[in-house]
């Protein structure tokens, strides 16, 4: 009688993968980051370019959504003015947990070259920020690198922990 020995775990034949809940959840989260279309100024154009044909953001699972309720990543792309500040907070509050914020470009980081009366000096005065992207305007590659960094950050976080309040209030 022929002996058939199948090592399911090694040969990949068994349709079962062993892992932790954390890893599965974070794998899902980190590879389907849906970003809010939030182009405020010049950086918004580069954000569009990274979603368009040459840079193709879809391969990261990043799809731009127009509604904050379907988005979990807010890419603040551009200058935040004092008149607009209230709305960014409103949109941030409307996003569902878990949510992350990338501040794209110098204007969003620190006010950048617009050191004037009308500009918020850094979007982190209004909403908590996870990643700061330098550049004016950052290239699409930079934004994609930032998203990869964010994926790494998400994978490091425990999935089920109650969200701690981030900095600011």
């Amino acid at each position, binding site marked *: 009688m022929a002996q058939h020995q199948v090592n399911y775990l090694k040969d990949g034949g068994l349709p079962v993968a062993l892992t932790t809940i954390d890893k599965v959840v974070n794998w899902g989260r980190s590879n389907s980051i849906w970003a809010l*279309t*939030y*182009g*405020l*100024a*010049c950086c*918004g*154009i*580069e954000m*569009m*370019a990274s979603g*368009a*044909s*040459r840079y193709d953001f879809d391969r990261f699972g990043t799809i*731009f959504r*127009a509604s904050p309720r379907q988005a979990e990543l807010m890419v603040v792309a*551009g*200058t935040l*003015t004092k*008149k*607009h500040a*209230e*709305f960014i*907070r*409103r*949109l941030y*509050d409307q996003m569902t*947990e878990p949510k992350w914020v990338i501040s794209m470009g110098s204007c969003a980081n620190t006010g950048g*070259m*617009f050191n*004037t*009366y*009308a*500009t918020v000096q850094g979007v982190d005065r209004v909403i908590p920020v996870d990643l700061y992207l330098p550049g*004016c*305007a950052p*290239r699409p590659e930079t934004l994609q690198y930032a998203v990869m960094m964010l994926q790494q950050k998400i994978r490091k976080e425990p999935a089920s922990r109650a*969200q*701690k*309040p981030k900095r*600011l*209030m």
Partner: protein
Amino acid sequence: MQQSNRLRPFFENITFDRVDNEMILNFGPQHPSAHGQLRLMLHMQQEQITKAHPDIGYLHRGMEKMAENMIYNEFMPTTDRMDYIASSSNNYGFALAVEKLIGLDVPRRAKVIRMLLLEVNRLMSHLFWLATTALDIGAMTVFLYAFREREYLMDLVEDYCGARLTHAAIRIGGVPLDLPDNFMADLRKFLDKLPENIKDYEDLLDKNRVWLMRMENVGVISKEMALSWGCSGVMLRASGVEWDIRKEEPYELYDEVEFNVPVSDKGDNYARYKLYMAEMRESAKILYQVADMYEGTSTELMAHAPQYISAPKLDIMTQNYALMQHFVLVTQGMRPPVGEVYIPTESPKGELGYYINSQGGPYPYRLKLRAPSFWHTGILTDLLPGHYIPDVVSIIGTTNIVFGEVDR
């Protein structure tokens, strides 16, 4: 975790006890097809708009105030951020205004390079317009195609100045750099393919039923309305006024090149769309001609005016006086003569004007930026009433507004 703050939901939008059946719809400031940060308050009778009230200023960054506190050369990168789709046009408008104020003449090679940059920027802007408008109306394919071509143009500009979006590629008195070696070859290669590409877009859109329904006879601007609202560029030409500053008040080398000014008298969205397509072809025509002009010009790139313009880098490094002059110009800034000037140029969006009032100091006393999109947004007040909700998006699309220059 939601943190408490003082923001409460808006209730002024919904008045519960109204009897006149009027609804107030708030559009923006974060709306994917608002082309930036436009906020519209629309009074509606069912689906029809009765009153429109555009609210702008969400990208007001105080550029005019910045200009008053900066030396002239320092302000150049700020102009990039005005109409950020076509930055070099803004650079050029500012450089030209200051040159007229001083009375400078720019070397021919610099003029040729400026012309190249201006027209490449026009193409970039029009392609971007096509991409976003098509996306707003739902033609995702055109968005991807147009962005593909735009990336090639951005490569060209990047080869020249190192930046993709915010070029700062023009200086007062000339241009900082000569063209890189393969620039002309790459440009010609691109231009040879461009007619095919434009034909691709037109094949997709021209007879497309959805496109026609959203575009034809929607957003009709009459000639009187366009003139009264101070429209310029395509917005004006689509309403039957033949006025292109490149043709009527030629600057740079526009009087030496041959091109047509496409005009339509329909005034609707579709007319504007056709004009943008026609203008792209004209730009390509201009670029071919300008590319031929480049050969044989002398290698000088900056005007010679030691009082206002730094000497070439080689002189600065070798001659003492040039270095001293450069030091003074960088630390204190140039001091143009006392006087005022208003210089209009034809940017991709329309008439881009710079009004400079100089009091002889290194800082302009007043600088007013006349950005075409400001009035193209204003016209929405009169244009939108009578239209339906879906038309709003296509009308905003074809007005081609950019909020960097609406709010400045």
